[in-house]
């Protein structure tokens, strides 16, 4: 066998089966079952407490997407398509973007300028509480949903396509 040409790849496939369909070994799967929920919960915490502690929508969304990517890597494609498939995550992506835009538009409608913090101006709040800062937590949640589904979607789309050499040009095809 040609040593330069993917010896590692072949070894893995003979030992564990195809990692893209069957997932990784039993140890990885068990650890994933223990950890996946906590990673997702930590992402939600970072999103929800973005106005009080370091973090925010983007960081928390990426952490939550990391839990989905962990499931995809550990279990293969079958399990993740039951939890959040391509269609569901693209709907969530658009929903997050529209929610963000809607909050900005609501600022025009109630306060006069785009992205005016109208809830804080109208009701006010005690600082350092969970329910404070007006519509900043709402925007954080919108960005969190958006970033989570967008990053997962990019990973998912990249992981189900593969570049092959057909004839003398490269083509992108869906993996079997």
């Amino acid at each position, binding site marked *: 066998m040609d040593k330069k040409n993917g010896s590692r790849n072949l070894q893995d496939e003979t030992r564990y089966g195809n990692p*893209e369909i069957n997932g990784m070994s039993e140890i990885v799967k068990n650890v994933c079952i223990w950890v996946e929920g906590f990673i997702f919960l930590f992402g939600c915490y970072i999103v929800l407490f973005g106005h009080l502690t370091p973090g*925010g929508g983007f960081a928390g969304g*990426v952490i939550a997407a990391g839990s989905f*990517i962990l499931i995809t*890597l550990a279990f293969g494609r079958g399990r993740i398509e039951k939890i959040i498939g391509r269609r569901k995550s693209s709907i969530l992506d658009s929903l997050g973007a529209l929610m963000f835009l809607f909050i900005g538009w609501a600022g025009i409608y109630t306060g006069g300028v785009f992205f005016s913090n109208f809830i804080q101006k109208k009701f006010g709040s005690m600082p350092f509480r969970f329910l404070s800062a007006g519509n900043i937590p709402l925007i954080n949640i919108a960005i969190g949903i958006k970033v989570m589904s967008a990053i997962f*979607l990019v990973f998912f789309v990249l992981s189900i396509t593969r570049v092959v050499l057909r004839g003398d040009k490269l083509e992108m095809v869906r993996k079997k």
Partner: protein
Amino acid sequence: MTETFITIFLVFMILAAVVALEARELLSTVIAVGAVGFMLSVIFLFLRAPDIAIVQIVVEILTLVILVRATISRDTHFFEDEREFFPFAINIVMIMVFLIFAFWAVKTLPRFGLNFSKVAPYYLTKGLAQTGAANIVTSVILDYRAYDTLGEATVLFTAVLGAVALLRRKAKAAENKNG
């Protein structure tokens, strides 16, 4: 003190970047690029910017996972061709020209850590009262500069749109029908 640490880390980052360029194997290149990103996140921690440090470290981990997955699932690739002389010489000349101009530009920058903007004290003193958010960074990016954040979200949305549109399933069927 902070400056010394940052300089040391910057030297290590440059070394890792050179390793990433010169490594023969694709996997070691990916790992060296990851090292650059993690050192950058440590620098952000030294500069007391935990928000940016969290984002940097998390995005770096995800990028590393995606890149390792992409490079391992393909055949392991080795770079063995010698570098051509002419493009290399052009690169060196362009870098020299850039350094000559950057030398004057950098001299006009304010000193490290010197606060000269008038907006920053305003945010620090009035941010909590006006927005109610204890985290001033959040109050800047989601209240004072929310329009900026909308632009960033649009960039991400466009990137996903491009990925999904380029790699969708129906592309091949349509091509077969036409050709």
